[in-house]
């Protein structure tokens, strides 16, 4: 049990971060507003969780301009996808 708990990723303990990661692993990319709408959180809240995941190198972003407005696309990195897979495996083991 103890060992299994260590397998769980701290980065995904938070529901918002878990949600961001779930959405990003099944989509090539999502922009800030799509994530905001999906999760139903405020700008500030979302931004801080995104920054947190960025620091762990689980997600990355690209800035581009759509109709001269800045648009930020977020996507999951390979490291992030692997970490997420491990996290889900650990949960499944725990629930066995």
């Amino acid at each position, binding site marked *: 049990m103890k060992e299994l708990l260590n397998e769980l990723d701290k980065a995904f303990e938070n529901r918002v971060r*878990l949600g961001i990661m*779930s*959405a990003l692993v099944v989509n090539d990319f999502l922009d800030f507003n799509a994530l905001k709408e999906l*999760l139903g959180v405020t700008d500030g809240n979302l931004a801080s969780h995104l920054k947190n995941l960025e620091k762990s190198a689980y997600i990355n972003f690209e800035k581009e301009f759509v109709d001269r407005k800045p648009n930020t696309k977020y996507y999951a990195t390979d490291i992030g996808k692997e970490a997420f897979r491990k996290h*889900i495996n650990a*949960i499944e083991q725990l*629930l066995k």
Partner: protein
Amino acid sequence: MKEKYIEDLKEIKEMMNRSSRFLSLSGISGVTAGIIALAGAYLAHRMVFSQSNLLSFNSVELSGEQFINLLVIALATMIVSIGLVIFLTTQETKKRRQKIWDHQTKRILINLFIPLVTGGIVCLSFLFKGFVGVTMPLTLIFYGLALLNVSKYTVNEIRSLGLIEIVLGLVSLQFIAYGLWFWAAGFGLFHIVYGFIVKLKYKS
């Protein structure tokens, strides 16, 4: 403790579905599209196919009137049913407070229309050459391929509906004289059946 992780898994699954699949597809619009298709098939039977033996592999000489009637019925059926699907699905997304025009619906429409427009052009080419018989199975096959192509972006049922349409089209190609019956089954009957399934399952 365990409850938290069960909740987590639920959340993960829901977020994956909601972010990648369009689930507000209106079931009732499937039923109405089916009814319109049945009406279209009936009209085509009365006005065009009852007069002569058009449903064969051979190229047949359609009279100008027959050709116009067939084209008008086909276009009217298509426009009315697509219009209703768009209208009713828009209503459904409004009810669920979702956006109708976002990256999900864009992705679905693009992937739906690539096989559909290809099929449309193929069918029209055959129709202009007088090969009326083969166009019926071909519409089923291309429609099935189009559904299969978008099934990963929307409710799961669309995949099996697509497969049914493809199989119906292929079988119908062997029984070309009954083309209109297969067409009515594929576009009429199965739309109605699947409309009800989606309606019941997703309460839409």
